[in-house]
């Protein structure tokens, strides 16, 4: 994994990253990716991917309003809030 890839991935993940860190992570992440390549030894033809191991059915919720109206709790931890809104630096579209 090269520094450019690390930078691209960091940007996609919204992590500011210094030059020095790019270098460090390139080595470490490259090492991990090389290590996981051993998965290639396994023949997985005709194997379905497994996303969830729990052998239960998905339960559905009745369409009832039983939540919300807790604005104070929702905003309690906000770094910046005003007039009931969360506040962020202006987004220019």
């Amino acid at each position: 994994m090269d520094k450019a890839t690390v930078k691209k991935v960091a940007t996609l993940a919204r992590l500011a990253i210094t030059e020095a860190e790019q270098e460090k992570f390139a080595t470490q992440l490259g090492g991990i990716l090389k290590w996981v390549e051993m998965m290639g030894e396994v023949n997985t033809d005709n194997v379905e991917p497994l996303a969830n191991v729990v052998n239960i059915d998905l339960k559905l919720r009745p369409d009832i309003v039983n939540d919300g109206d807790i604005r104070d709790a929702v905003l309690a931890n906000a770094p910046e809030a005003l007039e009931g809104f969360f506040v962020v630096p202006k987004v220019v579209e």
Partner: protein
Amino acid sequence: MTNLTHLNIAQALEGLKKKEFTSVELTQAHVKATEEFRHLNAYVTETSELALKQAAESDARRAKGQVGLLEGIPLAIKDLYCTKGVRTTASSRILDNFVPPYESTVSGNLFRDGAVMLGKTSLDEFAMGSSNTTSAYGNVISPWKRNNGDNADLVPGGSSGGSSAIVAARAAMGATGTDTGGSIRQPASFTGIAGIKPTYGRCSRWGIIAFASSLDQAGPFARTVEDCALMLRSMAGYDPKDSTCADRPVPDYTAALTGNVKGLRVGIPKEYNVEGLSPEIAKLWDQGKDWLKSGGAEIVDISLPHSKYALPVYYIIAPAECSSNLARYDGIRYGVRAEGESLNDVYMNTRAQGFGDEVKRRIMIGTYVLSAGYYDAYYTKAQKIRRLIAEDFARAFEKCDVILSPTAPSAAFAIGENQDDPIKMYLNDVFTIPASLAGLPGMSVPAGLDSQGLPLGLQIIGKAWDEETVLRTGHFVETAANFTAMPQMLMKKAA
């Protein structure tokens, strides 16, 4: 009066019942021990005042005849469980100031049953680690020392290292942990206590900060298997707020501790005899087989052919899920926000300053393996091998009822060791991760000491939903091993 902090939970419940002491007295003793062991750095947040208040309430309930399953028992809660009105950090700078206005289902279950909370224990940041050295609040130190006189500070294991350290130090009667790839079993093994990760879906994940959602599972630490059984009974159960939580009755797990393993088929996976397995651990494993055999159990050779690939599979799937789970920490609705000129700068700086290196590594690996062009080679491939690993277990369980293995490939190491190379650290979980990927229950029971006087655990893996057989086997091994060693720090204190 006996030393209250040396009682186990079952004994304390008996003492409370017989009015030998009150919950306030029991809690006070543990608050005092908390202070004495503050240098272990096991807690991110101590809640002694709250504990004493809860203890007084518990005593009042008991006086009225309202006695829950864990009435008056002081416990520690891993700081990954959101606790209403009590700061919850996941040991991350990014949540330094986060006070949840809600209680996680599992901690709520414990309080419903009368438990008292001593504090919020430290962990590897967002539960990512096996040594508790990635916490933003500093390393947690194990109460154990090597007997070689080097006096090195040892890791308590991870990620639930604060919980394992504080229970081992007899400063909490039990603690909650979470286990994604071994984060209950490995620290239990490192600190000479018992811990069980139940079947995925047995405990609700609601209100527990997510690391890797398809693997995360809550479970207890305690000093005996019986105490684990008591705690798990409270913690487990259906929760309609978690779609992956099973609507199944929770058995009385203590009833499973019969001491009888006659006819039990115990599988020994040949692939766990990994190259370089320390002779001491191999010997302990053999010892475990012998104990079970002498109890009338049948030892069965089994094969889990894809075990070797479990670690790489885990280190694809867990980071993939965590890269998405941790996207919500953006400094907008909660947590610590870093300044930035644009919104994008706020995101980039908040996350760069808020997350430690291990978390960043995993977020980046996860982001990479899910991104266009790499998805199939890494993520889909890992999911396919995950199926093969689950099928390995299913096939093995046609031949056996439980599987016995070492919990970890080594005893606890010193803080600073294994730090240079992430992969070396990842190898700690080589025996615990396969069961995690298959969603199976697994427990670690203290079974012996290595030549340096450090505890070693044996792992028992069971069939899905069959925690009872796991606990029964664990209880038998525990009894046979008669593990009475105490951390050196406690012995020093007693002396």
